[in-house]
């Protein structure tokens, strides 16, 4: 993708460095007997190479590279101002990169027809306040050019999914911020998109709403959609994401599954009584250990070795009264990563 390209792309050419994609030409979303754009599942959902974005003197993205596989829930984490929203807008063609390139669903980022297969909840979610929720959803069905015969099911399904079934005929202007965010989520779900991009999807939601969003995300994963979850809420990412990339100052500083990111190591606290001296000598093979009254703390133990540790203690005649795994949290690792920068 050339940095000089218009933000509004109709027939983009493949950029150098893009992963190859094969398969038949995708067909229209909602047209029987043809595949919607983005259903060629051989290419990654998102593939970005050395993306740069500069706003005058401010560097928003500084060589961001990442790959999001099809069908995964991908967490895009970073502190405020790290460049997360810029990256999302770039993937959707709302802004242009000043360097590098990105492919989304096998097409250059911003490709107009590919956007038919992308659902998007913006960080700044605002919808036409003079329309009803149902009308907003119909508007997006029109803009997506979904087959008219599908509108009713799509709209009612979206309203039900986001918990607005009984407010469908109310004007958006009467909605609370949380309800508007729910509506935005419903808009993003229309047309069974192959990729759903959620930019801080729970920022205005109460705990019930946040739980609902997690359920919706899991539902999307179950039907094979890719979810790109942009968030600074680590708990949110930890709960639903298969994989995360941590971004800071416009660069990816870490990427992987939760286990990979936290090093696959854990700590465990055990309350053990009745052990002989031989036991204590064998502890070194599990990790660093220390004691605190009746409690034994073993740090740096591989997560899969905790049952072995317990079995060894029991085998030597110990009484294991409590086992408290203490896996390094994503938050610890997150702070560690940012501290390293």
């Amino acid at each position, binding site marked *: 993708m050339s940095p000089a390209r*218009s933000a509004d792309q109709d027939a983009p050419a493949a950029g150098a460095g893009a992963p190859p994609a094969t398969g038949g030409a995708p*067909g229209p979303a909602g047209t029987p007997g043809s595949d919607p754009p983005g259903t060629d599942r051989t290419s990654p959902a998102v593939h970005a190479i050395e993306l740069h974005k500069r706003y005058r003197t401010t560097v928003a993205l500084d060589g961001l590279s990442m790959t999001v596989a099809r069908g995964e829930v991908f967490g895009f984490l970073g502190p405020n101002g790290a460049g997360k929203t810029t990256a999302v807008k770039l993937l959707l063609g709302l*802004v242009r990169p000043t360097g590098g390139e990105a492919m989304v669903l096998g097409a250059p980022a911003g490709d107009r*027809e590919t956007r038919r297969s992308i659902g998007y909840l913006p960080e700044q979610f605002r*919808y036409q306040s003079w*329309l009803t929720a149902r009308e907003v959803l119909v508007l997006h069905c029109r803009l997506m050019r979904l087959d008219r015969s599908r509108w009713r099911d799509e709209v009612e399904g979206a309203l039900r999914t986001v918990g607005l079934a009984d407010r469908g005929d109310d004007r958006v202007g009467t909605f609370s911020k949380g309800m508007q965010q729910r509506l935005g989520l419903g808009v993003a779900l229309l047309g069974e998109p192959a990729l759903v991009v959620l930019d801080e999807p729970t920022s205005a939601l109460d705990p019930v709403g946040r739980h609902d969003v997690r359920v919706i995300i899991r539902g999307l994963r179950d039907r094979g959609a890719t979810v790109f979850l942009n968030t600074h809420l680590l708990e949110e990412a930890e709960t639903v994401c298969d994989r995360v990339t941590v971004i800071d100052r416009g660069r990816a500083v870490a990427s992987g599954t939760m286990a990979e990111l936290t090093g696959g190591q854990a700590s465990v606290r055990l309350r053990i009584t009745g052990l002989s001296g031989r036991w204590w000598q064998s502890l070194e093979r599990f990790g660093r250990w220390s004691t605190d009254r009746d409690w034994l703390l073993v740090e740096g133990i591989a997560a899969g070795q905790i049952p072995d540790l317990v079995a060894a203690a029991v085998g030597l005649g110990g009484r294991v009264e409590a086992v408290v795994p203490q896996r390094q949290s994503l938050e610890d690792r997150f702070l560690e990563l940012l501290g390293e920068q």
Partner: protein
Amino acid sequence: MTTSTVAVGRGTVSPALTIAALTITEALRRRLVLAFIVITAAVVGLSAWGFNRLAHHAGPGITSGEVNLAMPTSYILFMFMFSFVVALSASAIASPAISGEIDSGVLHAVAARPVRRAEILLGKWLGLAGLLAAYTAVVCGLEYVVVYWSSGYLAPDPVPVAAYLFAEGAVLLTLVLALSTRLPTLAAGVIGVAVFGIAWLGGVVGTLGTGFGVTALTTASKVVSYVVPTNGLWQGAVYYLEPQNYIIQQLVTQNDKGDPFFAATAPSAGYLAWAGVWFVLMLGAGVISFGRREL
């Protein structure tokens, strides 16, 4: 890599028409149309009363010839007021059309859909221009009928008048919409109003230049009328508001000197062609500007 050759779903319409319909719905639901109806009814009612008084209750010593001369003058002044409303309304409704929706975030969800930016802009233009056309047609028709009913004065050529007024408003609408793709709402609106005022003043200066033989003023006015053709188009409306005997009388008595509400000739075909080119260029500039705008 694969490229998408995608047919659209059945029963769908162009996104530009969808946006145009949305724009009109917004005007209706935000009571903009209602406000126009109320204000127009009030002003047309006032003009009916005024024309009735003028036609049937002129003071002692006023001849019917003087009244007949006053009728077109008054009608032109009323229509100038309506042209002012059309132009300022065009500026007011166009200025937030893009920038306001970018600021609020409403446009982000729309622009992320498989819609060309050009379709969004043209859809907005279509919707707003449709509203402007409807308003102009209603107001010109109403005034024409009401003045005839209240005073017996039948103004000439109402259709070209409405067309010129609409064209004047459409020029300003297009300019402000293009500005709205880059400037904040307030700035785009203020510039639109200022440009309209400057163009009108340019016309007055040209009239004075012609009337008093000052070539520099006439040239400056001509330049302004080509840079912003709103006043040139207003002059077209003025010409078609004037009965032929009124034009002759003004020329014979040399009352036309320095009169900004008088036009001896209609705009030339060349000028109208230029206004058309100007409009296309401005709309094109808006499309390109919005296409390159980062959201």
